[in-house]
């Protein structure tokens, strides 16, 4: 408890009271029902939105990230050019026209090549990550489906067992009633014979 208090920021919220179980005087089945409801509520409130957010991210094309990367590259090239100019100025170096033209050309070619490169790499990386996340989600989905099959199978078996027990009980009840009626009749008959 102390660890959690030390670690958490004040704005972090704890569990809602409704997710705490009242165990005083309740029987095990009631408590289990409370836990099941609390777990369902917990999933719906905290985890389902994260799942939806992840699914939304896996559908991103990567264009937004690519454009952002290209813009970042342009900004950093501009900063670099200005820093180089300041450095030359501080050391009293002046470029001649030929040097200026040559560096300008190199900078332009480099910017164009690297901009295209960073855009393509970003799209590819976004796509790769989207595929990995989608694969992970598919795996989660398969597990969920297996859980559904398992639970339905359990429920069906339980229902079949209960129905069989009920049928047996009814048959036993009927047989015993008949037997008792015959016995009582026989007893009366014996008494008056």
């Amino acid at each position, binding site marked *: *408890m102390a660890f*959690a208090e030390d*670690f*958490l920021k004040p704005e972090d*919220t*704890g*569990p809602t009271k409704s997710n*705490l*179980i009242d*165990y005083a005087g*309740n*029987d*095990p*089945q009631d*408590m*289990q029902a409370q*836990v*099941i409801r609390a*777990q369902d509520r*917990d*999933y719906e409130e905290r*985890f*389902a939105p*994260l*799942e939806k*957010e*992840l699914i939304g*991210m896996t559908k991103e094309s990567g264009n937004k*990230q690519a454009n952002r990367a290209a813009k*970042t*590259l342009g900004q*950093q*090239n501009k900063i*670099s050019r200005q820093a*180089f100019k300041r450095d030359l100025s501080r050391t009293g170096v002046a470029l001649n026209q030929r040097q200026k033209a*040559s*560096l300008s050309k*190199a900078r332009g070619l*480099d*910017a164009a090549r*690297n901009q295209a490169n*960073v855009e393509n790499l*970003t799209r590819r990386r*976004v796509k790769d990550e989207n595929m990995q996340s989608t694969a992970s*989600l598919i795996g989660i989905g398969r597990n*969920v489906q297996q859980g559904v099959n398992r*639970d339905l199978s*359990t*429920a069906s078996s*339980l229902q079949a*067992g209960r129905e069989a*027990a009920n049928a*047996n*009980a009814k048959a036993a*009840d009927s047989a*015993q009633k008949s*037997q008792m009626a015959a016995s009582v009749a*026989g*007893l009366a008959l014996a008494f*008056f014979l």
Partner: protein
Amino acid sequence: MSLGGGPKKIEPTEQERALAESAAKRHNEHQEVFVPLEDSFIASLTASKGEMEENRGAAVSDVSQALKGNDAGIAAASRGQAGQGKSVMARGMNSISGGTARGEAVAGVNLAERSRKMKGLQKMSAFGRGLQDMSNVSMADAARTASGAAINKLNVDVQKQNSKFAAVGTLAGTALGNIGSMDSLKGQLDNKFGTNFQGLKEEKQ
């Protein structure tokens, strides 16, 4: 008509109550200790503005350090001619490469942040479904417990009915097997209490 008995509800034993209370306490402890940690983890999946700036700054700083080292190397190799000819062009090209490297580093930080968030969301999605799956298992357990109790109650009812019917059956069997003795009993009753059971039998005959 049913002679079957048994209580409407089967009361849990003290041991079952204690076990359930212990489990419920652990559930509450999980809610109070671990759920806040989960919330904190979830909140940290999206990096804050400050955290992003710090990461970008660190990336730019690393590249800039490398860039300075390169520049110093070129200047040292120029033998005092760092502002001349090939040396200044080399420094210029170093600056261009540096700009690209810084841009790629910052873009990489942005992508890494997205990647971290997606991995965290994957983990949380799995945990969330784990909870949901556990919940389903618990539901199955609850159903199994309830069904087990219902089946046991049915079995107990049948056993109780069987024992009652068996008692009646035994009585009837005993009577039928002792009709002769019954005649003797009737005679004794008539003699002792003045009844006329023997006369009833003779009238019917």
